[in-house]
C-alpha cells in the first residue's frame, strides 16, 4: 500500500492550491455570501488557463480520478465553493460521452474554458430522491419538442448557460424507460427562474418550463434513454467531487478561535478537536479510496455512499460541538464584531444540515449500502 502522491500529482496539488489562494479571495467570498451565487468565475478561468478543467473531465482529459480527488480535496480544505465546478465537469463528461459531435462543438469549448456554466434540471417539486418519477413532459410536435413542467433545486440556474433537463417522453412504458435527457440553453424562450434562498446563504432556484420549444439538436443521448444518461453522470462523480471533507476547514477555523481566546488549553476543547481531526483523517482516507477504486477501473458506487454517510455525520457532529463551545460569540454572523472565527462557526451551523440531504440523502445512501453492499433482502 502507498498513501503518498507521486511527485507529479504533488506538483499538480501545489499548483491547484496556489490558484485557489489567488482567486478565492476574501472579497470574492464576501460576494458569494452576499449574492448567494457560490461560483468563483476567476477560479474557473484560472483553472482553465492551466488546462485543469479539460484535464479533469472524464473521457477528455487524462481522466485520473486521483487528480480529480486532489482538485476537490484542495477546494474543500480551502472552503472554496466546488458545486459549480463539479456540475460543470460532470456535464462536460456526459456531453462528451453521449452527445453528438455538433453538441460537443457547440457546448464544450466554452465550458472547458471556464467561461460558461451548466446546471442540472433533475429534481422536481414532487420528486427528489425518487428521480424516476419525474413528470416534466416533453412532447414531440413535428420537428420540435415541446417541454412543460417545473424543476426544483436548480442551483446556478440564474447564472448558467446550459441546463441538463430530465423529462418524461413516454408515460406509457415503465418509469425508467420513458425518460429523455435534453441539453438546452438557459435563454431558450419559455424558461423562467424563481429564486429559492437557502439558510446557508446559497441561492438555489425553482425553474419553470412553459411550452419551451427545442429541436432534436437538444436531445442528449437519444429518445427514452434519459435514465442511461443519468447513470453515466453518476459514474463520473466517482465519490470524490465534494461534501466529504468539510471538517477540515471547520477545524482550522475553530482552532484559530481557540488559540485567539485561550480556550486551546482547555482539555474539554482539545479532546473534541482531536476527535474531529481523527474523523477528518478517516473521511480523507475513505474519499481517497473511492478515487483509487475509480483509478483502478471500477465504479465506487457503494464506497461513495459509505464515504458520504460517514463524512457528513462526522461533520454535523463536529459543527454542533464547536457551536456549543464558542457559545454566544459562535452565534454571530460574518462581519459582526466579535463573531467567533469571523462568523465561520455560525455559518457552518447553517451549512451543515444540507450535507445529509443534497447529492443523495442519508436514507438513499443507507439503502444503497444495506442492499448492494451488505446484501440485505429488499422489503416487500
Amino acid at each position, binding site marked *: *500500500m*502507498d*498513501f*503518498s*502522491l*507521486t511527485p*507529479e*500529482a504533488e506538483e499538480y496539488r501545489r499548483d491547484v492550491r496556489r490558484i485557489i489562494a489567488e482567486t478565492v479571495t476574501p472579497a470574492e467570498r464576501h460576494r458569494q455570501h452576499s449574492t448567494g451565487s457560490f461560483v468563483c468565475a476567476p477560479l474557473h478561468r484560472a483553472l482553465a488557463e492551466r488546462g485543469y478543467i479539460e484535464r479533469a473531465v472524464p473521457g477528455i482529459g487524462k481522466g485520473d480520478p*486521483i487528480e480529480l480527488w486532489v482538485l476537490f480535496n484542495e477546494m474543500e*480544505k480551502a472552503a472554496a465553493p466546488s458545486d459549480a465546478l463539479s456540475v460543470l465537469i460532470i456535464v462536460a463528461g456526459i456531453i462528451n460521452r453521449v452527445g453528438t459531435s455538433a453538441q460537443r462543438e457547440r457546448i464544450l469549448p466554452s465550458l472547458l474554458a471556464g467561461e460558461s456554466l451548466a446546471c442540472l434540471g433533475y429534481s422536481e417539486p414532487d420528486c427528489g430522491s425518487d428521480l424516476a418519477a419525474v413528470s416534466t413532459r416533453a412532447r414531440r410536435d413535428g420537428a420540435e419538442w415541446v417541454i412543460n413542467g417545473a424543476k426544483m433545486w436548480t442551483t446556478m440556474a440564474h447564472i448558467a448557460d446550459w441546463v441538463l433537463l430530465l423529462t418524461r417522453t413516454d408515460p406509457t412504458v415503465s418509469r425508467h424507460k420513458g425518460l429523455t435527457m435534453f441539453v438546452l440553453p438557459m435563454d431558450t424562450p419559455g424558461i423562467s427562474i424563481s429564486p429559492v434562498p437557502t439558510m446557508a446563504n446559497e441561492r438555489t432556484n425553482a425553474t419553470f418550463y412553459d411550452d419551451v420549444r427545442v429541436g432534436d439538436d437538444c436531445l442528449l443521448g437519444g429518445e427514452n434513454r434519459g435514465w442511461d444518461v443519468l447513470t453515466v453522470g453518476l459514474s463520473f462523480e466517482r465519490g470524490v467531487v465534494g461534501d466529504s*471533507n468539510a471538517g*477540515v476547514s471547520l477545524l482550522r477555523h475553530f*482552532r*484559530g478561535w481557540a*488559540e*485567539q*481566546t*485561550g480556550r*486551546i488549553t482547555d*482539555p474539554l476543547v*482539545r*479532546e473534541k*478537536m*482531536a*476527535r474531529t*481531526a*481523527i474523523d*477528518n*483523517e*478517516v*473521511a*480523507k*482516507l*475513505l474519499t*481517497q*479510496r473511492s*478515487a*483509487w477504486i475509480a*483509478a483502478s477501473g471500477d465504479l465506487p458506487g457503494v*464506497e461513495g*455512499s*459509505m464515504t458520504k*454517510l*460517514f463524512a457528513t*455525520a462526522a461533520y454535523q457532529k463536529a459543527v454542533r460541538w464547536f457551536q456549543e463551545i464558542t457559545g454566544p460569540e459562535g452565534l454571530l454572523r460574518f462581519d459582526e464584531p466579535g463573531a467567533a472565527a469571523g462568523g465561520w462557526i455560525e455559518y457552518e451551523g447553517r451549512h451543515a444540515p444540507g450535507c445529509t440531504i443534497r447529492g443523495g440523502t442519508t*436514507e438513499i*445512501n*443507507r*439503502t444503497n*449500502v*444495506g*442492499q448492494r*453492499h*451488505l*446484501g*440485505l*433482502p*429488499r*422489503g*416487500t
Partner: protein
Amino acid sequence: MSVDLAPSADEQLIEHAFTSFFAKEAPIELVRRSEPLGFDRELWSKLAAIDAQGLALPERVGGSGATMGMLVVAIEALGRVLAPVPLIEHAVASRALDQPGRDLVDGTAIATIALRPAEADGRWRLVPAGAVADVVIGIDGDQLVVVRSAPPGSAPHNHACAPLADRSAREGERAVIGMAAGWSTAVSEWRLLTAAALVGVAARALELAVEYVTVRHQFGRPVGSFQAVQHGLADLPGLVEGARLLVRKAAWAADRSAAGVEPVIDVDDNDVTDFPALARMAFVFAADVAAKITDRSLHYHGGYGFAEEGAIQLFYRRARGWPLVLGDPSTECLDLAVALFGAPAAAERRSEKGG
C-alpha cells in the same frame, strides 16, 4: 500509481495464510473453552509452528523481518476470530528488545509489555498477557526494565476474559535496558496492533449481524428486510473500512519512518504521516468503531444476542476489554492533541503572540 491502496503481494500472502490458519485452528468453541483465562497454549504452539511469533522480528535475530504493513494484516485475522493468544503483546515486547532470546523468537516463551509504569510498590497492575507471559517489559521509576519471572497462570475475572495480571517489576531476573523517557515506540505499536485486532472484531461482528437478520424471520419476513434494521446496519461498513484504512496508513507510516522518511503533521492541511499520531488515531477510532458495531450487532440479535450461548457477546466484551487496558480513550485524545496542536502551554504562548 499515485496512491495505491491494493495490498502488496506479501500482505496478500500473510492475509491468506493467517485467515486460513485461524479459520481452521481457532473456532468459536475454542474461544469459549479458553475462558475465563483467555489463553490457549495449544493454539500458541500451533502459531509457533508457522513462525508467527518471529514474524515481525528482524532477520538478524532469526525472525522473518515482516513489515508493520504485513503484521497488521495478520493481527486483523486474529481479531476476526478472537484468537485467545497474546500475539500482539509478544510481538511488540520482542521488537522492543535489541536481542530477543531464541525462546521469544520461536515462541517457547511469551513476552509482554506493561502499558502503565510500575506503582510505588514495584508492581505493574493489570498487565495484558501478564497471566501467561514469562518476560515483561515496562517502566519502573525512570528506567525501562525487562523482567523474567514465572507467570501466575491465572487472571482476575475480567470483562473480556483476557489474561491480565499484576506483575512485579523488581522480582525475578531483571535488567535495565534503557530510560523511561523516550520509550514510546512499543506502546505506539501496541496501539496500532490492537487497533488492527479491533478492525477484525468489528468486521466479524458486522457479518454476524447480517447473517442473523437474514435468516431470522418475524412477521413472515426476514428482519433484515425491515428498513429500520437495514439502516441501522448500513452506517457500519463505512466505519469498518475507515478504521481499516487508518490502521493500514499508520502501518505504512511506521514502515516509512523505519526507512528514514521525515513525517509530517499539518492538521490545517489534513496531512498527517507521523506514525505515533496515526497509531493513536487508529487506536481511538478502531476502539470506538468496535464498541459501536458490537453493540448494534448484539442488539439486532435480540434476546439471543444477550444470551451466553450466542457468539456476539464474546465479541462485545472483547471490543471493550482489549482497548480499555490502556485507559480512558479521552486521555488518548488529549495526548494526540499535543502531537496535533502542540502542548497546551505552547498553544497558549502562540495565542499570546497573536496566533
